[in-house]
C-alpha cells in the first residue's frame, strides 16, 4: 500500500508564533507543579539548563534567568578529572561537559572552571581508532565525537586531539545512503547526521560529505504534513526540525525543504495555554522541544528570533564574540564552514 506514516494538523492548531508564552514557560520551568518530572530529569540537568538558556537568548530574554546561581552550579559540577556532570553528585560525562561549556560561553564566563582540565578530560576520551567515549565506561557514539570537537572548538583547543583519526572514525560511519549512524554500520539517523556534519564542519572536512546524496536523504525526511522525521517510515517530530534542518544548512542545501510547510508544522506544535513546544501537535511540551522548535524557526528565517548557528545551536552573536564564525578561523578553533555563504555571489 501507499499509506504514509504522518500526522494530520488540525485546522485549529496554532499558526502564529507565541514567543512571549514560550519565554514565560522557560522562565518558570522547574518551579511549577510538574516538579516530579523535573526531578526525574536531574540526570540531564546541565543539558536542560543549556536548552533553557539558549532558547531564552534566542528570544532576547536571557536576562530573566539566574546567571550567578547557574555559574555556581556549574562550578560545583566539575570533577577532579576535569569532566563535568549533569548535576551535583552525578558522574562526569562528555554530554554535560559540552553543555556546561556552551552555557559558560553564553555567559562569557568560561574561566570559572578549570579549562585545562576540561581539555585533558576530553582528550583522554579519544580511543585508538579515533572515536570518542562518552565517559570512562566506554560507550562509543558519533554524538561524542561531536561533543568532543565542539567543546574544544569553543575553548580554542582543537589541536590536542588526533584529528586525522577522529575524522577517519566519523567518515567510517558514513552509510550507503550518504547518511551517518552512531557507529560504523549503524543505520542513518538524522540526530547522528547532525553530529557528524557538525563535526566535519568544525574540523574543516565537509568536502568529504556527498552533499547531493545526503541532502536528498535529508529533504526526504519531509512528510506531507510539512514536519520532518528522523529516518524513513517514522513519524515527524519537532526536534528533527533542528537535526535535519541544521544539517541541511551546514551542507548548503536548506532550500531543498518546503519552508512554509515546515514552519506551519513547527507552529502547530506549540501549546497555546502553557507555552512551549511538544514533539508533535497536541502532545506535552518540554524545554528540549521548545529550543529546537524555536531554533528551527530561526534557521527558516523568522526575524523575531536571533540568528542561530547551525553547528553549535547557539546564537550567532555569541560565536562571533568568541571568534568562531564562517570564513574566520583562528588556527586552534578549527574551521566552521557553513557552506551557504558564498553562493549569492555566483
Amino acid at each position, binding site marked *: 500500500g501507499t499509506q504514509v506514516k504522518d500526522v494530520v494538523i488540525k485546522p485549529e492548531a496554532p499558526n502564529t508564533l507565541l514567543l512571549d508564552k514560550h519565554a514565560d514557560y522557560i522562565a518558570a520551568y522547574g518551579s511549577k507543579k510538574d516538579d516530579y518530572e523535573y526531578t526525574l530529569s536531574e*540526570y540531564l540537568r546541565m543539558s536542560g539548563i543549556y536548552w533553557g538558556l539558549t532558547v531564552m537568548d534566542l528570544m532576547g530574554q536571557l536576562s530573566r534567568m539566574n546567571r550567578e546561581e547557574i555559574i555556581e552550579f556549574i562550578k560545583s559540577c566539575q570533577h577532579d578529572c576535569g569532566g563535568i556532570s549533569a548535576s551535583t*553528585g552525578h*558522574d562526569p560525562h562528555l554530554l554535560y561537559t559540552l553543555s556546561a561549556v556552551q552555557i559558560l560561553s553564553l555567559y562569557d564566563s568560561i574561566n570559572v572552571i578549570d579549562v585545562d582540565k576540561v581539555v585533558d578530560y576530553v582528550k583522554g576520551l579519544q580511543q585508538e581508532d579515533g572515536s570518542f567515549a562518552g565517559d570512562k565506561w566506554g560507550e562509543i557514539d558519533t554524538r561524542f565525537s561531536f561533543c568532543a570537537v565542539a567543546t574544544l572548538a569553543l575553548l580554542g583547543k582543537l589541536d590536542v586531539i588526533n584529528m586525522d583519526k577522529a575524522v577517519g572514525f566519523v567518515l567510517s560511519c558514513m552509510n550507503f545512503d550518504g547518511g551517518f549512524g552512531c557507529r560504523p554500520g549503524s543505520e542513518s539517523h538524522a540526530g547522528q547526521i547532525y553530529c557528524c556534519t557538525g563535526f566535519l564542519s568544525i574540523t574543516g572536512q565537509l*568536502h568529504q560529505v556527498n552533499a547531493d546524496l545526503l541532502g536528498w536523504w535529508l529533504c*526526504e525526511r519531509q512528510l506531507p504534513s510539512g514536519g520532518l522525521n528522523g529516518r524513513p517510515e517514522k513519524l515527524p517530530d519537532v526536534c528533527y526540525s533542528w537535526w535535519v534542518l541544521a544539517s541541511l544548512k551546514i551542507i548548503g542545501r536548506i532550500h*531543498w525543504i518546503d519552508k512554509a510547510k515546515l514552519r506551519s508544522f513547527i507552529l502547530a506544535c506549540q501549546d497555546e495555554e502553557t507555552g512551549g513546544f511538544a514533539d508533535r501537535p497536541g502532545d*506535552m511540551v518540554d524545554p528540549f522541544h521548545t529550543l529546537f522548535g524555536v531554533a528551527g524557526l530561526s534557521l527558516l528565517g523568522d526575524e523575531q528570533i536571533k540568528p542561530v548557528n547551525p553547528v553549535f545551536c547557539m546564537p550567532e552573536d555569541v560565536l562571533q564574540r568568541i571568534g568562531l564564525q564562517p570564513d574566520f578561523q583562528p*588556527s586552534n578553533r578549527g574551521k566552521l564552514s557553513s557552506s551557504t555563504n558564498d553562493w549569492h555571489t555566483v
Partner: protein
Amino acid sequence: MHSKRLKKIEPKQFYNLMCLFFYFRDRKEWADLEPVPQDDGPNPVVKIAYSEKFTDVFDMFRALLKNDEKSERAFALTAEAIELNAANYTVWHYRRVLLQALDKDLREEMKYITAIIEDQPKNYQVWHHRRMVVEWLNDPSEELQFVAEILSQDAKNYHAWQHRQWVMQEYKLWDGELEYVEELLEEDVRNNSAWNQRHFVISHTRGYSDSAILEREVQYTLKQIKKAPHNESAWNYLNGILQDGGLSSYPGLLEQVTELQDTCSSPYLTAFLVDLYEDALETNSSSYDQQETLNKALELCKLLAEEKDTIRREYWNYVSRSLQNTYGSGDPVASSSDPPPPSSSQQPDTEPSDP
C-alpha cells in the same frame, strides 16, 4: 542529542508511590547512615518538590556515594533507584562498581537487565550496561535471541539494532542473519533498519563486489519493490548497492524499472530513473543517445517538481538546472539559491587553507 523526552508518569509509577513503602530512613539496618539531601546550592535554581519515596531513596544513594560504601545494601539500593529513574547514569555506574567489588553473579545480573530492557527498551544506560556485562562474561550466546525478542515488539528500536550489530561483529556471529532480515522484511518491507542490516551483513561477509551476490540483491530488491513500490528504503538500497558499478550500465536494469512504471507508479521510481539517466550522461554511455537521455531526465524532473513530489520542487529544479548546465548545449541556467554547478556530486571546497 538526547532522544528522551519527559514522559507522563506511568500508572505503575503512581501505584508504586502510593503504596505503603517502608522508607529507608526508618529501617533499622540503615540507621547508621545519615541521609544526604539534594544540594542545589544556597539559592536553588528552582524550587523542587520531591515525592517522599524518591527523596528517601536518592538521599540514601547520595549517602552511600559519599562514603564510597561497597555493600549488599548499596547494591540493593541501586535497584530501587533504577526503578525510580532508569536514566540516571550515575546509579548505573555505581552498580557496575558494586558488581565488581562484591563479585556478584553476572548471570543473575543479565536476568535483571533483561527485565529492565523489556520494560524500558529505549533507555541508553541499560543497553550499555548490558554490553559491559556481556563483555565481562565473554558470553554472547543469548544476545541474538534476546534482541530478536525486543525487535519483535518494536522492529526499529535503534538501541536494539546497535547492540545486535556489536554482538555480531565482536563475536563473529554472521550465520543466519540474512534469513532473519528476510523474515523482518516479510513482516514489514518498509523497515529501514532491516534494510540497513541487510547491507551490514553482506558488507561484512561476501560483499557486493561478488557479481553473483550483487545480482541476487538487485533482483531481491526489485521483487520487494513490486510488492510495495512506495518504499524509500528499498529504492535507497538499490541505489546504494549500484553506486560503484553505475546504474545505467547494469544489464537489464533500465528495462526492468521501466517495466515497473506501468504497474506501480511512485515518485521514488521516477527519481530512480532520473538518477539512472544522470549516470548515463555522466559516463557518456554509448548505449544511450545523450540528447534523448537528457530530455527524458529533464522531463521527469519537471514531472516530479510540478506534480509527483512538489514538496521537494526545489531539489528537482536543482537537479534539472545541474543537468542542463552540465550536459545541455544552451546558456547556463542559474538560481541564486544554488551552489555552483558541480563537476562531481561533491560540493566545492569553500574553506580557506590552514594558516
